[in-house]
């Protein structure tokens, strides 16, 4: 059970990487970006390809992250920037179109999937407690996730750039009036968001399989996270992501178990997995009902 909790933490932290970029783009630029999941996929594919090329997991991943950041910034500077002033429907459709383009582009270059395996040194388990063995690779993911989360918090709360970001999130016009170079800031924020996606994609690649379409599935969860956490709030994205990570992972293992204790075996085997898969959405519905703007809304 502790193992499941750690899995939940691990998944939640990776979700946070995706959600934080998404919530910042949403909060500051007021843009719905469906292509965020596509960047996650691009990061994973680049990592798989570069790890093969360089024969080094670390180097491959770092290069992939850097490249994805560049791709993200190029995308922002050319296409996405024209969408800021448009209505939400246009943004949804344009970024939806982007998903189609990017998905097939990846297919054209690398095919539908690419193999990515964890480095040899991390393939064994680590003993955390007597009787508890946990895969060392997953432990590394947790460590990386926490480290980046810490870095992000320091960046957003303690640095000048972070202050600009927070100013932009709450009042864009005022931020511009104060002389902040909004255009560069937006491009930068987008680049960081893309980089974070790539980290998540590359790290989860060995566990979840690098394939076209991996972005779509996780994108919805990322949206659920930021809705729960509150649009524009990085802290909200963190809390939301950990919550969703736990609920989803542990729900899938615990709930069928629980159902079997309470209900008849036929009902349990049918209802258990069904309810477990929608648990996260029920959570979101409840949060929205009680507090429609999310737990930690970044907007005033």
């Amino acid at each position, binding site marked *: 059970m502790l193992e499941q909790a750690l899995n939940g933490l691990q998944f939640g932290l990776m979700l946070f990487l995706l959600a934080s970029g998404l919530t910042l783009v*949403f909060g500051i630029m*007021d843009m*719905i970006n*469906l292509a965020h999941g596509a960047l996650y996929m691009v990061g994973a594919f680049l990592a798989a390809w570069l790890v093969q090329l360089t024969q080094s997991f670390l180097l491959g991943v770092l290069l992939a992250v850097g490249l994805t950041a560049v791709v993200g910034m190029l995308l922002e500077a050319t*296409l996405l920037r*024209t969408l800021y*002033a*448009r*209505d*939400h*429907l*246009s943004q*949804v*459709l*344009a970024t*939806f*179109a*982007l*998903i*189609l*383009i990017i*998905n*097939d*582009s990846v*297919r*054209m270059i690398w095919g539908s999937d690419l193999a990515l395996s964890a480095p040899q040194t991390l393939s064994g388990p680590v003993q955390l407690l007597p009787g508890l063995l946990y895969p060392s690779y997953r432990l590394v993911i947790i460590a990386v996730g926490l480290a980046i989360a810490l870095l992000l918090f320091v960046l957003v709360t303690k640095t000048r750039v972070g202050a600009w970001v927070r100013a932009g999130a709450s009042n864009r016009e005022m931020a511009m009036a104060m002389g902040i170079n909004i255009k560069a800031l937006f491009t930068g924020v987008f680049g960081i968001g893309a980089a974070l996606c790539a980290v998540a994609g590359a790290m989860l690649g060995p566990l979840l399989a690098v394939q076209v379409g991996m972005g*779509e599935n996780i994108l*919805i969860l990322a*949206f*659920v996270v930021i*809705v729960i956490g509150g*649009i524009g709030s990085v802290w909200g994205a963190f809390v939301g992501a950990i919550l969703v990570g736990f609920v989803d992972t542990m729900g899938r293992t615990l709930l069928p178990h629980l159902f079997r204790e309470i209900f008849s075996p036929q009902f349990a085997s*049918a209802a258990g*997995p*069904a309810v477990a*898969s*929608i648990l996260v*959405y*029920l959570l*979101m*519905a409840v949060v*929205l*009902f009680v507090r*429609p*703007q999310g737990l930690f809304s970044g*907007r005033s």
Partner: protein
Amino acid sequence: MNRETPPWLWSLLLALAVALPLVLHARGQDYYISMISRMMIYGIAACSLNLILGFGGLVSFGHAAFVGIGAYAVGIMITEGVTSGWLNFAVAMGVSALAAAVIGAISLRTRGVYFIMITLAFAQMIYYLVNSIKAYGGDEGLNIKSRSNFGMGLDLKNDVTFYFVVLFVLVLTLVIISRMMKSRFGRVILAIRDDDTRVDAIGFPAYTYKWVLFIIAGTLGGLAGALMVNHQNYVSPNLMHWTQSGTLMVMVILGGVGTLSGGLWGALVLLILEDLIAEYTVYWQFYIGWFLLAVVLLAPRGLSSFFNRPKKLETKGHA
């Protein structure tokens, strides 16, 4: 309200639509009849989305759920031996109406981007729910052995007969939507699209009107789904995946947001385009993507003039 298609044009189109399958059948090209039937079914689904999206101004990202619910309702009934067409379709519409009532009641309390997200989430919820019901196929989908039976000597397995049934439903849908938007109810809805707070301020409960519209749209979506499962003899959870909702939205914007038949034309254009491009390359999504991008970026204000208002005026996230 805006430029309206003249009646003579509608009559001409109807005449063409009636003649088409007969001509194709005479030439032994029944395959095309089936293809057009499928396009019309999507057209009905897209028109139902246009009701809430185009006329209501509500960006619902979970509309495919209602199509799927209608399809599964019929699929399950037929699997269990209930093949009466009247019963199938009535239940399909009833269940999707109920689902729309519940989803709408909760979602319509939110606005702007939260509304988009919560409709999306509800659709995903239903997708995962259906996915896990192994008894009816789960993620592999459900095959049905026979089609709905309406009696009256109608054999839905016949491509031409089925085509006319679909055409009938399509015309009925368009007539219903057309009358509705010109009625008192339609007026209130169009006003809500402009400013729902003002609608409250002159004495209409805007929320209730939106809710009723949502239910009507969901019901029509379920109707499309009932036709869909009959057409394919198959239904899978993929029908309700959020990318399907996205496809419906694409059809709406292609054909014209907030126009009566925009959903129909959008469906025809998109599906024909997809089929054409797929003949030449397996990467048809790539080209459709660019096409869609071009439409969104370059679409003249007239196409989606009710959405391209300056951001400042749009209410976001707060009741």
